[in-house]
């Protein structure tokens, strides 16, 4: 049996039963990385030595009979915009190419506390801006299903690592779909928690009011287990929610009888791939067959979500990224005076997409344009939220495609920002509303590429969407597949 092909919970059981050691497991993943990452490019930094040390200490815990957590000794990967003490955190940007954080993100503290093994830091779109991981300043990541295709983004490295067996689990971040869309493109499970459910402390900010950290995993069981680790209030994050965290694994139940599922007409956008539509409709039929009720709903403001999103996110990004000026950390390009130094640094070290959004954001916040753009976007955001509130009076969850298409070819739309932004049509409305959403595989295109569907819940209804996703997953074989082949 090839260990790297197994979901994390299977590996966890094997570790606990002492059928394998964490050191063996970690070596297996490190080997896999060595053999395949030249093709996939999922990691920016690998930390083999550290990983083996962590594995060793996990093995000691397991063999001493101490109580172990789900993550004890399980090798995983962290998106490179989550601060890791003593390990480079680049955000896939030349700006932070050599930045080594002197502190750990809140999620890292939690994960380390569980004695997990960290294999390295994964590739992404620069500062999480993009939907294909082509905006990485270093190299694009390739989809394990078809290396000519993108893995999605911005958490493309994390998604590809999990799908390709280069990590047993991974952490990503989702500002407008950056966990769910790559999960969909790579045939795995990705969950964006309710805004405030997971601490953002130490997640390098792209758009503060939209960013959330979440898991990318091989199946829903792994997803629930990792959410258990990372969810919870953090006094270091004023926007985190001070509510008790349930045991999400209790929601791993096969039962959708009586569940009311809403199907929003507006999510079947123009240009949506026929195969995607067919896959979603097939899933709808499956849910009905399992006893769920499916009702058509309307979320009329959905069509403004992308515009609102790109204004709000860019405005926040413009100020969040102001700090990269070459003064006290990060890259510096010298100049004849301080203004020239700052200008040169930002001109040379930011990529085009980052600069584009900084410019959009500053424009939207400028005197005379604020009301017309930023303020209007905030109003639309409220309307999008109200759409959901109304819908959730009638339904328990909302089902929609995760992305309009399966994974596209590397280079095919990178020079067409608008086309790229439309990729986010089904994912950004949740971020605007702060809602939780999970993407899981629901079929394949004729070309053999995975198709994902998204289950959206009310605020803090992670249990409901996990239960719904689990029920569907267990009725199919997609989660048993590895890169398109049933293992």
């Amino acid at each position, binding site marked *: 049996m090839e260990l790297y092909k197994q979901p994390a919970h299977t590996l966890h059981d094997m570790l606990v039963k002492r059928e394998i050691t964490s050191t063996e497991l970690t070596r297996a993943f490190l080997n896999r990385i060595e053999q395949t990452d030249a093709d996939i490019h999922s990691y920016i930094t690998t930390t083999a030595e550290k990983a083996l040390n962590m594995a060793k200490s996990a093995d000691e815990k397991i063999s001493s009979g101490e109580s172990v957590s789900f993550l004890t000794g399980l090798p995983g990967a962290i998106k490179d*915009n*989550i*601060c890791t003490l003593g390990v480079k*955190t680049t*955000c896939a940007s030349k700006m*932070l190419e050599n*930045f080594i*954080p*002197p*502190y750990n*993100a809140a999620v890292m503290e939690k994960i380390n506390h569980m004695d997990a093994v960290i294999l390295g830091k994964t590739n992404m779109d620069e500062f999480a801006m993009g939907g294909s991981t082509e905006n990485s300043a270093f190299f694009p990541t390739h989809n394990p299903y078809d290396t000519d295709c993108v893995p999605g983004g911005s958490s493309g490295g994390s998604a590809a690592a999990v799908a390709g067996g280069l990590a047993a689990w991974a952490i990503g971040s989702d500002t407008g779909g950056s966990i769910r869309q790559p999960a969909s493109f790579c045939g795995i499970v990705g969950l964006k928690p309710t805004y405030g459910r997971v601490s*953002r*402390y*130490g*997640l*390098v*900010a792209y*758009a*503060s*009011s939209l960013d959330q950290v979440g898991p990318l995993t091989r199946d829903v069981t792994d997803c629930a287990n990792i959410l258990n680790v990372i969810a919870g209030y953090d*006094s*270091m*994050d*004023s*926007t985190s929610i001070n509510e008790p965290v349930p045991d999400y694994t209790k929601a791993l139940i096969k039962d959708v009888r009586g569940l009311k599922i809403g199907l929003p007409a507006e999510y079947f956008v123009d240009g949506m791939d026929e195969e995607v539509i067919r896959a979603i409709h097939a899933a709808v039929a499956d849910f009905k067959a399992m006893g769920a009720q499916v009702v058509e709903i309307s979320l009329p403001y959905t069509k403004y979500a992308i515009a609102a999103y790109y204004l709000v996110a860019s*405005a*926040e990004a*413009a*100020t969040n990224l*102001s*700090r990269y*000026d070459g*003064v*006290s*950390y*990060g890259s510096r390009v010298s100049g004849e005076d*301080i*203004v020239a130094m*700052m200008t040169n640094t930002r001109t040379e070290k930011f990529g085009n997409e980052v600069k584009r959004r900084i410019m959009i954001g*500053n424009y939207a*916040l*400028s*005197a005379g344009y*604020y009301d017309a753009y*930023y303020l209007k976007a905030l109003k639309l955001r409220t309307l999008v939220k109200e759409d959901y509130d109304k819908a959730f009076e009638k339904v328990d969850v909302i089902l929609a495609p995760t992305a309009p298409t399966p994974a596209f070819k590397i280079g095919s739309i990178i020079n067409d920002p608008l086309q790229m932004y439309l990729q986010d049509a089904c994912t950004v409305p949740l971020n605007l509303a702060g809602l939780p959403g999970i993407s899981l595989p629901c079929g394949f295109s004729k070309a053999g590429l995975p198709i994902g569907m998204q289950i959206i819940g009310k605020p803090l209804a992670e249990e409901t969407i996990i239960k719904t996703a689990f029920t569907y997953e267990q009725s199919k074989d997609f989660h048993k597949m590895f890169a398109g082949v049933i293992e």
Partner: protein
Amino acid sequence: MSYEAVIGLEIHSELKTKTKIFCGCATTFGAEQNTHVCPVCLGLPGVLPVVNKKVVEFALKAGLALNCTINKFSKFDRKNYYYPDLPKNFQTSQFDLPIAEHGYVDIEVNDTTKRIRITRIHMEEDAGKLVHAGDTIKDSASSNVDYNRTGVPLIEIVSEPDMRTAEEARAYMEKVKSILEYIDVSNCKMEEGNLRADVNVSLRPTGSEMLGTKAEMKNLNSFKMVENALEYEIERQEEILEDGGHVIQETRTWDDNKGITLSMRTKEKAQDYRYMPEPDLVPIITTDEQIAAVKKTLPELPDARRDRLIDDCGLSSYDAGVITNSREMAEYFDAVIKQNVDAKLAANWIMGDLAKNLNAAGKTIAESPVSAKNLAKMIKLIQNNTISSKIAKKVFDEMWQSDNDPELIVKEKGLVQITDTDAIEKIVDEVLLGNPKPVADYKGGNTKSIGFLVGQVMKASRGKANPAMVNKLLKEKLSQ
């Protein structure tokens, strides 16, 4: 043409919280460079601010003490501008919903009370400090940044342009400082930059309602600087207008050594700070209960205290104003008069010899070597004629050196006043005998010469004779 100045102040006051506004770093002044810093105040990637509750409490206190309305829904905003002492390149401040608005303070200038309106009070973080390699930024090849001050909490108190003279501006700033000291939210050490003002001034023809073009002077950190800079600037603008010129809108710096203002940068158009709501912080919701609770913690404020000293102690408005200007002095005064001593006498001693000695020694009244208790004892000795006022000065000087019990000093040094008529009469007779000329002058109509004779008697008694008795006896004998 005669002109009238229109002056508004923005006062920045550092709050005396133990820790910074958004992180746990200490706010202590004067620490070694970059030792009170952490990822949050350094603005490292990924960090988030958390509001120090004490800052909100202090701002509420200031708002209430300055007669403001508290905004029950208040929020933080980002003020965007690039400067190397600002690690995030935005300052977390408050824009359209500050914590407090619509307040006022009353000032006294030339015996009239004037109300100066306060537009708003908002909370914000201080920036770091540039440490230039040379003396000024212009002659430095490089500069270091000290981030210790980054994130020290500030409140900015913005006045309406209600002041018309440099004197009024000074009185306003003194009053605000006094109130902040009373409510104990700021150390108000101006030399450490705890309290500094940006001053706006424009001129207009007297009687006009229109506003002229203003100049702004930033970071004035003493009352004298505010007053001098304004006096200079008013004169400068007046000369321009007299010559038929136009004042340009600009920021000017005050050169304290040369006593002039210099152009720093012209504001051709207002800088666009691209304010936006701070997404990393939640709004500050204040309830009526919280406001009531903070109100309860407010001490008696300077105006009320001054009125009390006028009404209950019979002090003049001026004396009461001087004493209550500083909370420390007012408390010292209260401690003295609590010992049942004459309030006016106490006020004179505190504002006179004590203040003079403190000034010379560069000490605050809280650091006074003479305790309130001993000063009260000494005043009692004057009141019961044990010592004269003149001797009291000697006793006071002794107390300043040692803070010994004044009764002890008087006893040990034999300074008890001579009130025995026979003893004084003896000295008076000797003086009259020894000074025939002044005696003759007096008798000849030059009554002023009695002053010399009193002095001689006092001298002969080594100051111990009761001056009133000396006067009385001399007059009696001279008119015999």
